[in-house]
């Protein structure tokens, strides 16, 4: 019999019950909650007269709707100008107060994007099952955890039972060999992988990212990669536990301490795929060959290296794909064979659950330091992922670097990644964005999103168009 994959181990450790009909009951160690996908779940509990199964397994924070301007934020919930957003954030506060769930409210320094807050607090731990009503929950798999997004009915189900009814996924390994070139980041790796396997390439699989390039990445880089597993169709992405994981977790508020810490570390060190484990699908990528990536279309798989040119639909044989390219070029206002570096930008957004951690901000700051944002740009926003990331960045003086270069330094939240708050693109505007989705209208009605790494976004802010970040690093 072959060995177990990391996913097999996590699955086996959380199996409560195998049901006769082929489904399984899986225990959930942690649920993260935010204001958008939880109100109907709490309402469901109330209507059925149910109570949460386990309060201490839940942690909440508002993130999608919160404004990122200082003046609105200093007032708290009452300061949210949009009345509908205000009701939604207020509803989260009320529900958490009513049911007794720990919440980092808007004025709490620990507030931030759920997928930044969980790891930062040690509320995300290796070996956990973790869910949230948000597809980017795959982020937490970077810790050797089984983490994936769920819908609101399932949020209610987990609140009420601490379990999920689900079926086991298949195993896929994405092995990134070799060392990444300087200036090439986790974001470029995951965009290149999505370009390779497509937005449905991982559907039905739990994807483990392994190989030398992944092992060399920091936790921030690994989180960026797992975050976008869902953009390859995989609900869950994960990375095996190693010393980098353990060092990151140590000393965080929700992490085990003392004797339990030693016990936990011993267990966590078993959280990797066995040498003889078998995967249903293996994808091998040459990490050393990856260049900085830029999406040109309206799906994350529409991605190319920065030195490439926009594709020509006439070269595509498959009619559904050809039509997809034509539609994307029209929406994006681009011409076939246009060089990526010729795309002029209107706005730059550095932030989101993909790229708003301290390392991301350092990477962007290093590029803009001592330079000025291009005069042609309407706006360049930097939105830290949490109050604590913001505090850390300010302690390092990064806020000053950004402000002096002409970027705006904002309060934490999801912001322009999905534009549920006031930060959004105007129709037809091109944005270099460190977020995760370039869907039509995602960042604002008619907005045109190009997904890039923080360094590439920073370089684009300086140049006013796309440019290989490595050119700015060299000079």
């Amino acid at each position: 019999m072959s060995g177990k994959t990391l996913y097999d181990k996590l699955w086996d450790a959380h199996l409560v019950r195998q049901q006769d009909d082929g489904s399984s009951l899986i225990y959930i160690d942690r649920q993260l909650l935010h204001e958008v996908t939880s109100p109907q779940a709490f309402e469901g509990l109330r209507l059925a007269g149910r109570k949460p199964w386990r309060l201490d397994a839940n942690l909440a924070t508002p993130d999608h709707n919160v404004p990122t301007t200082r003046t609105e934020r200093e007032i708290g919930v009452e300061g949210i100008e949009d009345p509908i957003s205000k009701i939604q954030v207020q509803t989260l506060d009320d529900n958490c107060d009513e049911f007794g769930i720990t919440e980092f409210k808007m004025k709490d320094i620990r507030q931030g994007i759920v997928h930044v807050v969980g790891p930062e607090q040690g509320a995300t731990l290796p070996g956990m099952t973790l869910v949230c009503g948000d597809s980017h929950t795959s982020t937490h798999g970077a810790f050797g955890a089984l983490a994936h997004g769920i819908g609101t009915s399932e949020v209610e189900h987990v609140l009420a039972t601490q379990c999920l009814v689900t079926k086991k996924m298949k195993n896929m390994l994405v092995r990134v060999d070799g060392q990444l070139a300087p200036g090439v980041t986790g974001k470029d790796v995951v965009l290149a992988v999505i370009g390779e396997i497509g937005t449905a390439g991982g559907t039905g699989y739990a994807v483990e990212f392994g190989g030398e390039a992944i092992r060399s990445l920091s936790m921030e880089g690994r989180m960026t990669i797992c975050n976008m597993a869902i953009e390859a169709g995989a609900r869950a992405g994960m990375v095996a536990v190693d010393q980098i994981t353990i060092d990151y977790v140590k000393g965080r508020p929700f992490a085990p301490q003392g004797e339990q810490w030693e016990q936990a570390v011993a267990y966590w060190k078993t959280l990797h795929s066995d040498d003889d484990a078998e995967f249903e699908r293996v994808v091998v990528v040459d990490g050393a060959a990856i260049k900085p990536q830029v999406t040109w279309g309206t799906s994350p798989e529409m991605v190319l290296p920065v030195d490439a040119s926009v594709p020509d639909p006439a070269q595509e044989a498959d009619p559904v794909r050809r039509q997809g390219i034509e539609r994307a070029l029209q929406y994006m206002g681009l011409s076939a064979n246009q060089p990526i570096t010729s795309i002029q930008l209107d706005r730059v957004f550095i932030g989101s659950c993909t790229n708003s951690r301290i390392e991301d901000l350092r990477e962007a700051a290093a590029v803009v330091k001592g330079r000025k944002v291009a005069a042609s740009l309407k706006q360049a926003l930097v939105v830290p992922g949490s109050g604590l990331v913001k505090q850390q960045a300010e302690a390092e003086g990064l806020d000053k670097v950004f402000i002096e270069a002409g970027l705006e330094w904002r309060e934490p939240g999801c912001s322009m990644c999905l534009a549920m708050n006031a930060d959004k693109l105007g129709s037809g505007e091109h944005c270099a964005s460190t977020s995760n989705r370039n869907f039509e209208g995602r960042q604002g009605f008619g907005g045109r999103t190009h997904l890039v790494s923080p360094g590439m976004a920073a370089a684009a802010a300086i140049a006013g168009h796309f440019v290989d970040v490595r050119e700015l690093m060299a000079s």
Partner: protein
Amino acid sequence: MRKFEQHQGIVAPLDRANVDTDMIIPKQFLKSIKRTGFGPNLFDELRYLDEGQPDQDCSQRPKNPDFVLNQARYEGASVLLARENFGCGSSREHAPWALDDFGIRVVIAPSFAEIFFNNCFKNGLLPIVLDETVVDQLFREVAASEGYQLAIDLEKRVVVTPAGDRFEFSVDDFRRHCLLNGLDDIGLTLQHADDIKTYEQRRAAVTPWLFPAAH
């Protein structure tokens, strides 16, 4: 939950791949704290020519005449015919809520994104995977005949065309059972409360740091 046993209805063809949940229901409508009322904003950016706002009267907005759901021949459609990877992107359950509120009962596609697929079953909506060649055939038939309808039988797991072609589909036993009987799966899971408690006791001994309240 509403039961789903059989359904027959007009088919609307949405001929594009990778339809994401942002497209099904744009973010500005996710600010609602209710489960209902999303129907008028289903496919908002494709359906209307202006930018939609929450709580707006959509009857006065300029419609996009090219969009399939605005065309008279598809009025009252309750079966959506789609392309690969339908429902990708965000986990928002507002997507099936919007389809349901609009009156869609069945979505047929060669493949679906998993979270969306799962969310449909929680809301009495049936997503059906059919082979790409079959989906191609259905697109051709819908285009060729106005008022084209499909009949779906969940008990028998079959889609039947007006010409009498029968296409079988597969569906998990658990999901089928819940849909056929309109069952609330929280109630079903709570029947196993003792198993959950036994698991917690066993697990708290191995990984006590995950059960701080128990110590």
